């Protein structure tokens, strides 16, 4: 099926998220939509999928103008979508999820789950997925959940399949498998829109590339174009893809983790006998596919999760059983992976957010009162030093862009004297300008002789920042290797292979 978007415009208040976007996807083509975070890719796809209604422009399928009132219409017209955040009901079974909204029923609207199971098995077998239709979705690994999403789209006979950042949760090898599946679907005649910001994947699988920036189409590109050219189109200026850093000057051991084990919800060892050291002046990156225990490891290090075994030493100080506050007071800075949930209070002002973990004493507080004069002065200083673009310190955090929100978090954590800095997904959902800034600050912290732990699922970020890389798989550290290790080796480790 041929998909055409003509002059799609979508505004949110004064913000133009999509500005007269044109796009043509031929039948059986894999068409990449390339753009950095916040460029408007997801908005465009939500318009296509009927979740948003466009302010201007038309959607055409096989040259017929479509009017989508909701996702139901889009699906009926043959559009399927695999969302970046899976649209699955965690407590439902695979079969229930696959048929939801399109349920086979008997008399009186009674569910016919048998035919639903049959449908799942059929598609599963056709594409070699190993999915049990009666499994509860929340019990499945992330990779399988993504396959459920694909089955869901195929079960509705999708002729146009949109994949929104599908590789974020996959190992390099799983990514390769997914690309194989995409190829197979395209050969069978399905048109595929592949949304991503990762140049490597675009070059590997796309037939054609459309680059968008700041809500508008910048131009088309070919997969054979160089990565530098694609990056320049995407960002709008020459980008240095690497991170500049001097050779590490190692100090004494700053963090020492010994046999750390954390039990997650549901009696699983989400962190399983993890041991590593980080020395002052070095960056240890923890790599791995999302959901292999990195989050829980970071939370255990900062006291948010109670370890069931093992030791955490900060220099000579044992912080294994310390509270979050004690660990903060011991000089541990922490950037949580989900800043909206864990890092910021959206309804607080920037000034209030900058003192989030500092309300227990001077200089931000005086006795049991907030020291407003000091607070305002310090907030202004941090806003300037960390280049937070805001009308002022009284602006609500939720009104800032993702990049500026993250700078507020970074300012709060790096704006004091640290003995250890832990950053989880420090640049997720952040624009390229802010990414560069945040990377610089992280390296500056390392060069100031602090031990730094970075947790990231972005292999580029890991290899760029790290001095050493620890790869996590199913709660265990598979190995700790040098930063110069090849992507292929890292990829195999992320899938569980030991070095």
């Amino acid at each position: 099926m041929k998909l055409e978007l003509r002059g799609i415009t979508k505004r949110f208040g004064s913000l133009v998220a999509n500005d007269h976007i044109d796009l043509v996807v031929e039948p059986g083509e894999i068409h990449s939509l390339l753009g950095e975070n916040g460029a408007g890719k997801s908005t465009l796809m939500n318009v296509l999928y009927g979740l948003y209604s466009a302010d201007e422009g038309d959607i055409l399928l096989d040259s017929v103008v479509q009017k989508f009132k909701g996702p139901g219409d889009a699906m009926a017209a043959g559009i399927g979508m695999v969302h970046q955040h899976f649209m699955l009901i965690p407590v439902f079974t695979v079969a229930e999820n696959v048929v939801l909204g399109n349920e086979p029923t008997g008399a009186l609207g009674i569910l016919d789950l048998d035919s639903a199971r049959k449908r799942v098995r059929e598609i599963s077998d056709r594409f070699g997925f190993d999915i049990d239709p009666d499994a509860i979705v929340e019990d499945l690994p992330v990779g399988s959940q993504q396959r459920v999403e694909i089955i869901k789209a195929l079960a509705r006979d999708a002729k146009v399949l949109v994949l929104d950042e599908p590789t974020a949760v996959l190992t390099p090898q799983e990514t390769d498998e997914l690309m194989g599946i995409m190829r197979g679907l395209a050969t069978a005649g399905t048109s595929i829109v592949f949304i991503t910001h990762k140049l490597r994947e675009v070059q590997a699988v796309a037939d054609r590339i459309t680059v968008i920036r700041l809500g508008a189409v910048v131009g088309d590109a070919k997969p054979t174009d160089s990565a530098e050219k694609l990056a320049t189109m995407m960002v709008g200026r020459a980008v240095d893809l690497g991170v500049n850093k001097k050779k590490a000057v190692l100090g004494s051991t700053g963090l020492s983790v010994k046999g750390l084990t954390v039990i997650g919800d549901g009696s699983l060892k989400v962190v399983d006998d993890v041991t590593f050291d980080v020395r002052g002046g070095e960056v240890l990156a923890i790599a791995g596919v999302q959901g292999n225990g990195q989050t829980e490891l970071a939370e255990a290090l900062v006291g948010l999760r109670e370890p069931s075994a093992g030791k955490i030493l900060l220099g000579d100080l044992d912080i294994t059983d310390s509270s979050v506050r004690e660990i903060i007071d011991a000089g541990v800075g922490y950037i949580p992976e989900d800043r909206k949930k864990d890092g910021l209070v959206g309804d607080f002002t920037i000034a209030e957010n900058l003192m989030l973990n500092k309300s227990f004493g001077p200089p931000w507080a005086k006795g049991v009162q907030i020291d407003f004069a000091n607070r305002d002065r310090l907030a202004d200083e941090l806003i300037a030093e960390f280049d937070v673009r805001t009308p002022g310190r009284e602006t609500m955090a939720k009104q800032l862009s993702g990049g500026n929100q993250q700078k507020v978090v970074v300012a709060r954590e790096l704006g004091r004297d640290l003995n250890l800095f832990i950053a989880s997904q420090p640049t997720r959902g952040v624009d390229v300008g802010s990414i560069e800034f945040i990377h610089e600050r992280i390296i500056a912290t390392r060069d100031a002789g602090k031990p730094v732990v970075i947790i990231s699922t972005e292999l580029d970020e890991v290899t760029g920042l790290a001095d050493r890389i620890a790869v996590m798989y199913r709660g265990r550290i598979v190995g700790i290797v040098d930063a110069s290790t090849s992507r292929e080796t890292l990829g195999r480790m992320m899938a569980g292979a030991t070095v």
Partner: protein
Amino acid sequence: MSTASNDSFARVDARVSYKTPIVMAAFALVVGIAFGLFGKPEAVTFQWSNPEDFIHIPDFVVASNLVGMVVGVILLIIAALAFVRARAARTTPLWLNLIFGLFAVVALLGWLAAGNNVPFAFILGNAVVLAVPIALGAMGGIMSERVGVVNIAIEGQLLTGAFLAAVVGSLTDNLYFGLIAAMVGAALLSMVLASFAIVYLVDQIIVGVVLNVLILGITNFLYSQWLSADGQNSNFPGTFDIIPIPGLSSIPILGPALFESRITTYLTYLIIPALWFILFKTKLGLRARAVGEHPLAADTVGINVARTRFWWVTLGGVVAGLGGAALTIGSVGAFGRGMSGGQGFIALAVVILGRWHPFAAAAAALLFGFSIILRVWANQVSPGIPTDFITMVPYVVTLIAVVGFVGRVRAPAADGQPYIKG
């Protein structure tokens, strides 16, 4: 925070929780010691059926403290059973809890009625009638919360239903009109809740409380300004007839208690299983639960979240309104000032206690109905005992249950969350 997926990590032995067996053992000891060892030696007569019943089961006469002893031992055995299960890292099933509760109740009855009768059919029958408004309120609550709208306004819906049933029933001289008016009125109230919650995205708990205040204000005003002056015409509806169901009503013990009742009670018997069936076996129910768990996901497969929520909440109002009618024309007839008296809040607790499941909620509602009749009956058979404490029993039981057993039970994931569409 990403939740790690299950089959990818090494497992550890599940942590063993002895909370349930410990609470059970404590209860068993209280029963055994208070009702058994220090119980009263007088005989107690358990009357299973009325003499005029079709099949008459002879009375069972036994010493009160013996009942306490025996039940205490049985309860200890159940607690031991729960302990064994807990050691194997298994939870205590609901039915074991229910059996435990049932025996505890028998011991309480035997202790209260020392030297007197326990009219089983009378107690059960009244408990059912008293449980009807609570159960229907709870079903309305479940319908609303399963699609993700917290309904604190059950109290207001019961009051609306009670008021309209009595007034419309009186004015039209037709109780069925009253019944319909009750359902429509409460449904309209639900529509206000639904539109505030869905359209205006107002905090659902707050809207619910506000609606309760509003309805209390309006019915109080109309009652004092109008009904109390003109009661003969406007507040004298009478009640539905009691219709024994042929056959079923002659079942021993249960028949007279359950199947000699009013239409409101029979409707309740129908609504509870019907709701269960619709929720868990049909397309409508699957979609409703999807909306309550993950509205965005439901939206992406073409389910209209706002419409689904609106209609489920509204129909929940219909059911709760029926519960309100049960308070007046299904029970005492005339409307009284603020007569729902907190039963809507009890229904709210019942929803949680019943884990958003129609059958479990119905059982919890029966517990409250039972406690109300127990208080009345205990005053008659055993005037010396402090009934204020018996009054507190169901609330304390609910507290213990909420705190001890269902504290971290999983509500529909999107319960109380507005769905904002781009």
